[in-house]
Every structure is written in C-alpha cells, then in structure tokens.
C-alpha cells in the first residue's frame, strides 16, 4: 500500500476526502443521515454544529472505530474507499484523527508508542525501521515546537497528562505521521488560551497544498487561530449549510437555533 497514492487522472481535480450519502447508526439509533461532504487538497474545512449533531460520530467513522454501523454511503480518500479498511489501514492511507479525549494507556510509554506508530507506517511502505538517533531527533524537534518536555514522553501514554498536554501530544503525533487528512475533533475543548495558541500553531505549521484538515468544533474560538477556508454547519446528522469563514462568526452571534429548526 502506498500512502500518497494519487489515483486521480483528471488534471486540476483537488478532491481529497469525499463523503457521499453517509448514514450511520449506533445501537439502532441513526446518528448520521445521508451526509455528504467534499474536502479539497490544501483546504481547512471547519465543521461546526450543536451538541448531538453527530460531529464526533463523523470523526470516529472516518477513523474506523468499531461499534458504528454504516448503513449506506462511501468515504473516499484520494479515490479509495476507506470503509473497507481497518483503522490502521486508514491511518496508513493518510487519515489522522486527533481525538477529543485521547485514550489513556497505562504501561505503554508515550515514546514507545510513537516509535511503534512511526515504524508501522514505514514498514507498510516497505521502508526500514527508523534508527534510534533518527527517531529521537524527529521527536525532539517536533516536541520543541509544541513545548512538550521530554519527561512527558517517558510517561505512560496520556496517563496523568493534563488536558493541554494530551492535545499537544495529539498534534505531535500528527506532525510525525504527516497525514493526508487531519481530522481534529474538538481539539479546543479543555484548553486554556495559551495552550490553544500552541496547538493551533502546531496545526498551522502542517498546512500544505497537499494536505487537508477537517476541524470539528462547537465554538468559533478555535477558528480565530486556525483560519478555515470553508465552514460547514452540521445538524441532525447532515451538513445543512456551507459558507466562508464569516459563517462561523454568524453562528457565534446567533447560535445554532436556526439550523436545528431547519433540519427538523
């Protein structure tokens, strides 16, 4: 499998992530309802919506979390259908989910985990494992930019990390794994303004014409720091409005009430 496969033949086609008519339920409750969304290469797409609109479900379904039942639809990344792939295969294709609540894993040092993740990606590409000095150098550089101290990396994965540390560590993983599409699920939740700035700078540094971001958030605040190209409003499990950055400001001013009613 190649990570940067470019199946497209049409010149100028910038579609990177395409979600088509996706319906998903969990325990027989429908959460996503015929949702369609296209994210282009180089784009930062914000998805805003009220609580319970299905934003986090969308993030998890993109990453392949078990327990969700996909009833219909497709998710294409660079033209390949992600729904047929295991979570790790999706990651190798270039999908990265920055978790809203990163999972704590006692007994696995953050550093050990990073190395396993990076080497899994390299093996899938047919590359050799990173040498320890090379690995250490990459981590050190990435950690410095995100103000992550080395002591934290020796701790068990996400265990005893503060909210800010967890989010910074998610972004460090994203920087090291260099995905095609980064999905940020409520990355601003639990962050104070200083931590938010550090995390946003980390994300902005990864912006690239060959990469896209899906930034899921309830509040407009994050979008002051990570400027979106396009804003989608999600309600009742589907995209109900799409616009430019000004849409986020409108939502901040007027709330989600109009959209919730419209979808009803």
């Amino acid at each position, binding site marked *: 499998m190649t990570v940067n496969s470019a199946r497209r033949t049409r010149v100028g086609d910038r579609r990177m992530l395409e979600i088509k008519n996706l319906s998903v339920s969990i325990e027989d409750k429908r959460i996503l309802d015929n949702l369609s969304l296209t994210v282009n290469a180089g784009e930062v797409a914000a998805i805003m919506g009220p609580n319970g609109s299905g934003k986090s479900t969308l993030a998890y379904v993109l990453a392949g979390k078990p327990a969700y039942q996909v009833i219909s639809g497709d998710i294409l990344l660079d033209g390949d259908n992600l729904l047929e792939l295991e979570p*790790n295969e999706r990651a190798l294709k270039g999908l990265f989910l920055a978790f809203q609540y*990163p999972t704590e894993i006692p007994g696995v040092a953050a550093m050990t*985990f990073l190395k396993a993740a990076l080497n*899994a990606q390299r093996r899938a590409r047919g590359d050799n494992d990173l040498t320890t000095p090379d690995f250490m150098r990459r981590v050190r550089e990435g950690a410095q930019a995100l103000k992550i101290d080395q002591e934290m990396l020796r701790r068990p994965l996400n265990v005893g990390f503060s909210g800010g540390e967890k989010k910074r560590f998610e972004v460090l993983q994203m920087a090291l794994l260099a995905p095609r599409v980064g999905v940020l699920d409520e990355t601003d939740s639990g962050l104070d303004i200083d931590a938010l700035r550090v995390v946003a700078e980390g994300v902005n540094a990864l912006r690239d014409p060959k990469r896209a971001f899906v930034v899921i958030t309830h509040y407009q605040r994050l979008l002051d720091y990570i400027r979106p190209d396009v804003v989608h409003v999600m309600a009742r499990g589907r995209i109900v409005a799409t616009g430019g950055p000004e849409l986020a400001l409108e939502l901040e001013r007027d709330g989600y009430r109009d959209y919730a009613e419209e979808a009803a």
Partner: protein
Amino acid sequence: MMADVLNRSVAERTLSRQFAEQERREPSSARAAAFARFAAAGLPSRRVEAWHYTDLLASMADAAPILPAPTRADVEAARSRLAGRERFAAGPQVVLLGGRLMAELSEPLPTGVSIVEGPAETYAVDDPLAALNEALSPPGCTISVAPGAKLAEPITVVHLTNGAPYHSVYSRTAIALDVEAQASFVEIFDGAHAGVQRHAATIMTLADGARVTHVAVVGDEPGLHIETQICEVAETAKLAAFGLVSGGELTRRQIFVRMAGNEAKLSLGGLALIDGARRADTTLQVVHAAPAGTSREFYRAIVGDDAVGVFQGKIIVEKAAQKTDGAMKSQAILLSPRAQMNEKPELEIFADDVVCGHGATVASLDPEQVFYLQSRGIPNNDAKAMLLEAFGAESIDRIEDKLLVDPLRDRLAAWLRTRK
C-alpha cells in the same frame, strides 16, 4: 485409618504404595509423620476450600512412578542440556536433577554462601501436598547465606528432570539467609514434558534484617506442576517473591508466608500467561504474626482460549500483629469468551489497629485502547500485543532487582509472539 482414606482413588493408592516402598529402602520417622498427615487428608478435592478450583482428586488419574536416582547417562544428558540452554540471569548455577543436587553440574558459589545436601525442616503448614512433598522428596539441598553477606549476582537453581516418558519428580530446596544477609535467587523449572508430574518445595527462611528476592520461572510443559513455598520472615527482614508461569497443563503455586518478626516486609507478585487448555492456580496464605508488618501482593494473569486461571489470596492478621499494613491486588485479562479466571481474595483480621485491603478485577482488553493504537497505523494484533505486554510488564517491573526484570520481560514478549 490410612487404608480407609487411601481407598479413595487410584492415585492415592499408588502414592501409598510408593511411600511404603521408600520406607522399606530407607525408613524415616519424620517422613512417615509427613505421609500420615497427607494420608489423613488425601488428595484434595473441590470440597477443600484452599483447593476449590483445582480438584486434584479428580484431575490426577494416577500418580506417575517416582524418578529413580540419576544414572551416569542421565547426568551426561543433563550436562549437554545445560550447555545448550540460555542462561536466565548472570551469576552461578546450582543444578538439581530429579530433585537431587548435582555438585558436578553446579558452579562455585561466592564467599559467604554454602550449600549442603539434606532435608529441610519447616514450620507446620496445613496442606496435604506440602506434606506429600516432605514425605516423598529426596533430601534436596540447603543454600545458606552468612550473616551480613551481600551477593552481587543472583544464584540460579535449575531444576532438571530426565527424558523418561512418564514419571513424577519431587524436590525440596531450602534457602536460608542469616542476619542482615542479602541475596537474589532464581528457580527455573526446565525440560519437563506432559508426562511429568512435578512436586517442588522451596523453603525460605529470613533471619533479622535479611533481604531476599526470589523469582520462580515455570516455562516448560509438565502435565502437573505443584510448587509449594514455605517462607518465614523475621524482624525487619524483607522477602520479595515473584512467579512467572507460562507453561504446564495444570500448575499450582502455593505460597505460605509467616511474618514472624516485627516490621517484617513482604512483596509477592506473579504473572500467569495461560492459553490452550491449561489451568494455572496461585494460592497464597500470608500470616502476620508480629506487629507492624507490611505485605503487598500484586498478581496478574492473561488468560486465553479455554484456559482457566485461579488466584486465591488469604491474609491472616493475628491478634498480636497490630499496625499491620496489607494490600492485595489481583487482575486478569481474558482473551476469549471461554477463558475463565477465578479470584478469591480474603482477609481474616484479629487485630484492631491495621490497614488492610484487597481488590480483584477481571476484564477484556479495552477496545478503546486497541482502537487508539490502531488509529495510528499499528495493526490490530500488534496493538493487542502491546497492551498485553504493558499489562504483564507492570507486574514484572515491581521487582526491585533489575537484573531479573529484563529476562522476565523477554519471556513475556516471547510468549506473546507465540500467540500471534
């Protein structure tokens, strides 16, 4: 009376005959007394509380013939086996073949350590298999560490058996530390196959201020492995004992500890890696008999396929043992819907000023954790292995003697590789 009881099963009749033959060859009143204790109880069934989950009466169809004293050829075979096996840890090896000390296969011990052949005595333990071991074991050996001696490297006791297709092997090893002595010991059980019934006993005696780390490794494949540890910890002495079980059809490790002196310290731990149709039982009985003792018990098990794990831990705090501080924890992960873990922690407290607690959990691998690792590109099997390795390693990492941590972690990793 004996005849009545021993009419109960084929195995019991065989054991009775084996003991009678031994008595004819070399009579011993001490061993006769021990066999009488065994005979009074017989092989334990599930009606015996301490053996509730390991019904020997039902599972021991017969007692295998006792391995005779090794021949010249047996000794040479053992020598080549030793040469071919990787050492578990640095330090000298003491070799027992069929429960008998093999001086010619053993290595010189450091200054302050002596070894003699001969039966080891213990305080009375109320258990039929402990009594059976005392009655049928060859004399075994006692390793003594002189007052104040501090050993830099662990001493490894290698228990070998020979290639006979169907036999039982008894051994009895004593470890005695004099005042303020410090040492680490490893006991490796090696080379047994499904036709082997093993009955091993280790007697550890710690004088005032002594410190011992003891690691037992059961990684071979005996049909039956019964291991009894009988330990006594004197004033301010500290015993840390760990057991790794990764093989054997039916294993039972039973550990009796008497905290005899003030401020004695105890740290017991273990990791059972059980798959296929194996059964592994760890049963503890810790008696706090003196004030201000501290005991910590921390056991973990990974149980797959149709395997069955057992953890029973009983902590008894006698009336004199005020200010006892005890904490016992047992945790298991089940890898299949058919795997079983039986946990029975118990406290019996007769003193009024103590802090004691216990906890037991049985769970599956956390799917959230597996998903998190997979979402970073780590394949499902590798993700699970990482989590299991972490779970197991947390029990191993509590061992203070770091020379023993890495080889145990290597064995855990090797076991996980066999499951992929």
